[in-house]
């Protein structure tokens, strides 16, 4: 019953020559430009198509006509998409570094499911209806499940399989609980079936402003962790020899991932695979240095999420595919591709 795990090689991040630094910085800038273009597209595209003029009018000289209302709604949806995307991508990158596991993702590790189960509990049993109320439940659920999976998966000898299995198993159990709640309560079913697929549909100004502080703190924390996480990647002994505080780094990483993923899940419902895919793509051109991976994840993860949201609005017009479904349909095959590769992406 042993599970064979793929061999992984871990190399210390090699110092890059200055020219490469310039290239990477340029890449980051290009990513930001792409993100801005997508954000504008996200405001223009949908059941009602708007021209750039109309978008401009709605953003900067709104007179409250029909088009301006559409722009306002899509603006908050887009901003929330940017925020949630960055949060999910960063938490995925942090989790992959923390667990030294290329398959780590808030969805696959069950952290999403933990937040979901807690939110469902808050909605049905405690009558919490506002986001500012149940975001705390989401944090608690994400933190507890994250810690449980991390401990169950084996902190020191965590193979990709072991962590993924622990996460999947815990998700399955929590999913059963969420389903039982939906059966017993038709009103909850009406609401929850839309929330549990993960979508940006109900985004508005207050959703955005309520999760913004949490995600901001989580993001800053994650970016500050780049160097200690680099040390962690070299293995416990080397890291300790280099003077890294292993436990402090691990704890702060979990705090950061919990804040990011819990807030994103509370606002949009569970969205999987963003945190899995983006760091892999980034790693393929930056290498394993977290000081580049994390900033890139902040820029490119929203590209994926907002892009998926646009795709969801385009393919199912006049209705839409929720963004969580689009990311799962894109991300599942990527995951399978990664699994099929002989040596999983190096960390």
């Amino acid at each position, binding site marked *: 019953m042993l599970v064979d795990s793929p061999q992984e090689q871990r190399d210390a991040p090699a110092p890059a020559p200055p020219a490469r630094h310039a290239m990477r910085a340029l890449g980051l800038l290009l990513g930001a430009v792409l993100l801005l273009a997508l954000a504008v597209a996200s405001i223009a595209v949908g059941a009602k198509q708007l021209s750039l003029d109309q978008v401009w009018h709605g953003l900067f000289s709104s007179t409250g006509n029909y088009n301006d209302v559409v722009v306002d709604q899509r603006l908050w949806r887009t901003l929330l998409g940017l925020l949630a995307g960055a949060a999910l991508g960063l938490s995925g990158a942090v989790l992959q570094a923390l667990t030294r596991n290329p398959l780590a993702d808030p969805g696959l590790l069950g952290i999403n499911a933990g937040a979901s189960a807690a939110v469902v509990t808050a909605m049905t049993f405690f009558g919490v209806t506002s986001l500012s109320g149940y975001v705390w439940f989401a944090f608690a659920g994400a933190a507890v499940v994250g810690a449980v999976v991390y401990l169950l998966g084996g902190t020191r000898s965590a193979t990709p399989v072991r962590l993924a*299995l622990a996460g999947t198993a815990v998700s399955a159990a929590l999913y*059963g609980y969420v389903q039982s709640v939906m059966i017993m309560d038709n009103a909850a079913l009406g609401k929850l079936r839309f929330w549990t697929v993960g979508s940006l549909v109900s985004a508005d100004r207050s959703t955005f402003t309520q999760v913004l502080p949490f995600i901001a703190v989580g993001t800053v924390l994650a970016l500050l962790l780049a160097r200690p996480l680099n040390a962690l990647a070299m293995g416990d002994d080397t890291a300790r020899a280099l003077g890294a505080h292993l436990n402090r780094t691990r704890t702060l990483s979990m705090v950061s991932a919990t804040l990011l993923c819990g807030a994103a899940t509370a606002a949009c419902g569970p969205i999987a695979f963003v945190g899995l895919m983006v760091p892999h793509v980034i790693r393929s051109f930056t290498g394993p240095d977290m000081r580049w991976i994390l900033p890139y994840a902040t820029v490119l993860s929203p590209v994926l999420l907002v892009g998926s949201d646009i795709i969801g609005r385009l393919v199912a017009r006049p209705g839409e595919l929720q963004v969580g479904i689009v990311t*799962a349909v894109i991300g599942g095959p990527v995951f399978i591709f990664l699994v099929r590769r002989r040596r999983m992406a190096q960390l």
Partner: protein
Amino acid sequence: MTAIRTKGGLSVRLRPRALIVGAVLAAVALVAAVVLIGTGDFTISAADVIRTLFGSGNPSQEFIVGDLRLPRALVGLLVGGALGMSGALFQSVSRNPLGSPDVLGLGQGATAGALIMIVLFKGNATEVALGALVGGLVTGAAIYLLAWRRGVHGYRLVLVGIGIAAIVTAVNGYLLTKADLVEAARAVVWMTGSLNGRDWTQVWPLLALCAVLMPLALVYARPLRMLEMGDDMGHALGIHAQRVRLIQLTVAVLLTAAATAAAGPVPFVALTAPQLARRLTRAAGPSPVTAALMGAALLVVADWASQRLFGADQLPVGALTGVLGGVYLLWLLVSERKAGRI
């Protein structure tokens, strides 16, 4: 351990402990089925149930037992048995105690087929069952093909299954949002796994499939167990490893799909039954027969318990196995981790 050998060279090994455990589990399953048949708005004593089953009850008892409750109990026994056995096969092939149809996404695949029938075509019970069967088979084939890389086994099978499960779960969520509330409620009950309202139209196809598939699984059980020692060892013993795995996976997928078609994706029976049985028999690996008996006993007891705890048909049996399975799972993860088996 005793072995029986015939002159023709056939030999059957008998392990007394496994035999006793199997007999006890079979007895528990049958007793639970009798109790289940006697339970409900109209209570019937166990003696009356048995008398009626042998054809000498009064007309009202014959109606309640024969038309209403016996089919439900039979579906419970067969579904539990099929899930238990398929769980044992999956766990043997993947060499992982968590490599069950729940984790690999087969239940979700069957659910997708059923949801398509419920939501898009407003299908009746038979069409929903057919949809589940097809959905399970397609998912199984997809996992097998995608996990293939000079053979299928081990971690790749499990991880590919997890990926497929995630995609299919998302699709299911989408289908659920497409439905109106009444259909969504029907779909959610189906998705939880329920034995409520099962009649003879579910029993016969399930029985036929089990009658073909279960003996097939037993024929290939021994070579499969040998492969647990590793492909090289199996090869040395003259076993065609990939053929044995393909046959056993096909049987397991069909059993899961058939069970899901009849009762919905009852969670965790396939995951727990083989491991619980293995612990009772103290065998090295999961055994298909004891796992099937354990699955049957588990499901019928759970169905009875859910009726007693929540009143008839308030909460489907799948909700109970889901919660119990979750608790069991945590324990399994902890204990297997200590033993270094996951």
